[in-house]
């Protein structure tokens, strides 16, 4: 059994991005002496599986390098919402049911199953959080809200309320998660959503990972 769960989408040219965002391109860097290989990477701060900091929406908000590391390595739960339709809003009731096991300050990952549409046009018509659901998450004292879709807001309708409500309370947002179905709903996992140490930026692509809580060293699972 795997100890670690990879919750990240692969980064490659042609991948799904938010409409209008920088188009990712990777090419061999020029002038690198043989036989070394180095790639020249070009991407957006919200490309692929990524984290949003408050400055993504609030001009005076915190940048991704201004949070303590404990905001990114934290416990949390997955909240599955099966049977959602295109561009459906998620209600407060749908969210509330799964929040029972959430530790104070933990992460809530909303499992819509929309990662199955990655790299298709339907990926843009994902479900999104209603204002009431977003307020419910604020009230639950989550410190981070993630989703296995392009956006916590509606991309079809260009809403902003979810980002405004969450980032306005310093709750971080993770988007484009994948494989949440590998985790058991309501069970506590340890998550890592560490951003790169990008000075002054509004977000960062991340490698999102989950594992069972507990000391990895003492359990000897890395040996």
């Amino acid at each position: 059994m795997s100890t670690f769960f990879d919750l990240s989408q692969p980064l490659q040219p042609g991948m799904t991005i938010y409409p209008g965002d920088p188009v990712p391109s990777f090419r061999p860097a020029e002038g690198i002496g043989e036989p070394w290989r180095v790639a020249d990477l070009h991407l957006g701060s919200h490309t692929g599986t990524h984290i949003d900091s408050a400055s993504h929406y609030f001009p005076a908000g915190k940048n991704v390098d201004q949070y303590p590391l404990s905001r990114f390595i934290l416990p949390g739960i997955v909240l599955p919402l099966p049977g959602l339709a295109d561009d459906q809003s998620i209600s407060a009731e749908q969210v509330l049911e799964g929040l029972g096991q959430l530790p104070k300050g933990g992460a809530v990952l909303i499992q819509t199953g929309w990662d199955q549409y990655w790299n298709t046009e339907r990926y843009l018509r994902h479900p999104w959080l209603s204002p009431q659901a977003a307020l419910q998450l604020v009230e639950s004292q989550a410190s981070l809200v993630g989703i296995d879709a392009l956006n916590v807001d509606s991309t079809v309708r260009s809403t902003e309320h979810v980002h405004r409500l969450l980032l306005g309370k310093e709750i971080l947002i993770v988007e484009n998660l994948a494989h949440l179905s590998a985790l058991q709903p309501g069970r506590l996992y340890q998550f890592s959503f560490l951003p790169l140490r990008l000075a002054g930026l509004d977000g960062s692509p991340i490698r999102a990972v989950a594992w069972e809580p507990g000391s990895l060293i003492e359990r000897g699972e890395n040996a």
Partner: protein
Amino acid sequence: MTVPGERDIPGVFNEAGGLVNKELIDLSQPIEPEMTVFPGDPIPHFRPADGVEEPWKVAEIKIGSATGTHFDCPSHLLPGGKTVDRYPLARFILPGIVISVPGLEDDQAISEAQISNGLINLPEGGAVLIQTNWDQYWKTERYLRHPWLSPQAVWKLVGSKTSLVGMDALNVDSTVQATDHVHRILFERDILTLENLTNLNRLQPGRVYQFSFLPLRWVGLDASPIRAVAW
């Protein structure tokens, strides 16, 4: 309302869901336009992305795969070598130790004797981070004249069964002399290298720490910038 980060919680948890009272230590250099890069590597560049509507902010990032604190995989040097997306996550979240090698000079080769005592507590398959303190010269010309691992030191590391060798310097090889023996010997045995670490002096030499060196999930690339963390 209080800010979540300033309340109790987040961090590393035990099996009962209780907070493990360990500090998370950042071993990463900041990524910014005027940072030190390997001579000839792409110059990092950030700018606001075009066409993003107010009040949203999105940045366009241009960066090299081996910029800042980063991982190198065998394909960085060996034709047909493994790329960064071909490893299980357990290669990147692993226990390891710091070996302190004080008093090094510009472009000095690190000998086998300077590291062999420090390897005693290395868990099998763990990470070895060589502390040269060269991170103090980050963003200066001297940063390029860092110490490096002699072939004998590299063979000692291979024999120690480490799976990853890191250093708080630009390169595990000599940048001044453009050597490649360190990368070559390690990559041929599928041992990964980690460069441009910082703050290793905040860790106790010989003590076993948990490290996270997760790369981004680039498909087919030779290296990845990372956020390196210890607890």
